[in-house]
């Protein structure tokens, strides 16, 4: 068991390292010039541009920059801004070229918004998806089943961003059924009320796949011999469904849930953009248009770490449930 965990952890670490190197090479070695974008055309002369580059450390060789960045991640590093030295503590992601704030600050102040959105959506899609899935499985073959599954198939097949966009345009902007997003500083009440619209559409669209997983998994479990045994013992149908059926059917669903939450924590970008939620996805999008390399690096790295860690947890958790996985 221990060797399996160590092997998986080693693999995970190598993937994170590779992500680090790749993003660094792609972004820092890329042809974009942050100094130029900080200072729109004709505003700065060549000397001024060079001064900005020196200030940002962009004049040094790429390898030096990479070693510096890498060092910053593990032991922290010192920055010099206009003769003043600022220390940047251990998981140092650098400073935003645009706002001058530390990237850690930029990301960690916004991360809670993304987490709230992802978790609210997760609550909605697990409850809605699993309930409809069980219902369809119990009513299997009936018209209700066909409508529910057909409906979820259609709803899930339309491109997500179109659904989210129409929902935002009509429900929030036009008919004002649901309130607009507002920051947490304006009060917890309005904040959570504003999160309902994005969480609802994200949750409902994601729930369509859970409906189908749950239905298939339940149908499989309910056809098992032990369920028939339970029924023949005279246990109430409700208990058969919940205690015998659902409990066994949940195994694969929990696995997918783990991976989906990781994906949501990194992938609410479209939702955040459409509903103007101030999360890390929207910040990353902004950074992309500003050529704000440290912020882009920071978000990509953070997202990769989250995905890899969740993958690792799911894999290790699964190896406890199904020991055969360890041998492969």
């Amino acid at each position, binding site marked *: 068991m221990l060797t399996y965990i160590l092997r998986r952890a080693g693999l995970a670490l190598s993937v994170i390292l590779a*992500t680090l190197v790749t993003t660094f090479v792609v972004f820092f070695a*890329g042809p974009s010039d942050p100094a130029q974008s900080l200072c729109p055309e004709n505003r700065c002369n060549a000397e001024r541009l060079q001064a900005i580059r020196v200030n940002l450390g962009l004049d040094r060789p790429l390898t030096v920059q990479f070693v510096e960045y890498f060092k910053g991640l593990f032991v922290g590093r010192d920055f010099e801004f206009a003769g003043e030295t600022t220390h940047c503590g251990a998981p140092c992601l650098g400073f935003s070229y645009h706002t001058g704030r530390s990237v850690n600050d930029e990301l960690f102040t916004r991360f809670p918004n993304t987490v709230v959105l992802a978790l609210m959506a997760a609550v909605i899609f697990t409850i809605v998806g699993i309930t409809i899935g069980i219902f369809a499985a119990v009513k299997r073959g009936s018209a209700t089943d066909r*409508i529910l599954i*057909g409906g979820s198939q259609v709803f899930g097949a*339309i491109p997500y961003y179109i659904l989210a966009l129409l929902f935002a345009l009509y429900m929030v902007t036009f008919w004002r059924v649901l309130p607009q997003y507002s920051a947490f500083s304006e009060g917890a009440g309005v904040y959570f009320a504003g999160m309902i619209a994005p969480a609802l559409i994200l949750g409902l669209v994601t729930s369509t796949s859970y409906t189908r997983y749950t239905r298939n998994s339940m149908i499989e479990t309910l056809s098992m011999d032990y369920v028939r045994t339970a029924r023949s013992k005279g246990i109430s149908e409700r208990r058969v469904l919940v205690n015998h059926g659902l409990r066994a059917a949940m195994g694969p669903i929990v696995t997918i849930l783990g991976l989906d939450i990781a994906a949501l924590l*990194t992938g609410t970008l*479209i939702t955040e953009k459409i509903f103007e939620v101030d999360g890390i996805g929207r910040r990353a999008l902004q950074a*992309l248009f500003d050529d704000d390399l440290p912020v882009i690096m920071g978000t990509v790295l953070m997202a990769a770490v989250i*995905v890899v860690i969740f993958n690792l947890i799911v894999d290790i958790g699964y190896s406890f449930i199904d020991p055969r996985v360890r041998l492969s």
Partner: protein
Amino acid sequence: MDGTPGSATDIVADEIEAEKLESEQARALGDATLDVRTGRSPGRVAFDRLKKDKVAIVCLVIIIFFILLAIFAPLVVALQAVDPVTGAKADVGTVHTELIDFNGLPTVGMSASHWLGVEPRLGRDLFARFAFGARPSLIIGFSAAAASTIIGVSLGLMGGYLGGWVDKAITWLIDFFLSLPLLLVVLAVVPIVQLRIAGGNRLTAEQTSTIRFWVLIAILVIFGWMGLARLVRGEVKSLREREFVQAARAIGVPTRQILFKEILPNLVGPIIVSASIAVPTYIAFEATLSYLGAGLVEPTASWGRTIADAQNYFEIYPLWLWPSVIGLSVLVLALTLLGDSIRDAFDPTSRR
């Protein structure tokens, strides 16, 4: 019961049960590729089953309609009448400011010369934008799906059959690509690749759009092969231990022939299913990228681009927004449902 509302009659359901039983018998006999009843190939069985699926047929008709619309876009647009104001037939690119009032809103609505009216601000014909807008979606979707399928199958075959360090490397590569935050990386890579190709020269809008077009296909392929590669690898790993492959190896059949004549035919089902599901995924992804500003750009007519521009006018001029929204949704929906039907046809156990 089969995930496709109101489609399968009881007769179809019975036949599926019967076919399932037979194929289980065939499997019990140790030969999954033979349909005992008629001797049809699994592809043929799936195709026959697909022909009876009403949803699949409806989806296919819709898809063919869009393909024809895209191919014959110039001819269809030419069916519109001559505009009395401009004195010419509308085309896809011409700007007609004379059809726009001082607020930027069109002065003409839906008419014989402009079936869907004209675009606010620029006065371009909206029906032409709609018809031509189907082109990039379809081309990108189908070509990216074809290319990523080829790459996925090749890498999966190599990893699964060769094993050893090749397999380790490919598995690692799959893990690596899957752990990248897809959308973020893609959004960041598009402008960088574009700048690399342009080499610092200023590009015209047309050039940018052409470059973006190819960059999008390349990126969809680069980030889209992993799922199929993983699937094929797993299948090949178990197939290569089967008796018929070992027998072929024992009598000295060359590796290439084993791969393409013995193993690959067993994977036709999963490959077709995966490719057919990839097409709508890529079309939706391309539209999303265009919406976020990293996809196609003006003056290319593209549904994703139109939706992004038209959303600011959705209250005062919804006619700009809706054709593209409906076109994109219906096309992706039809392709997805057809993909689901194809999957069901190849794997009858999924229809319950």
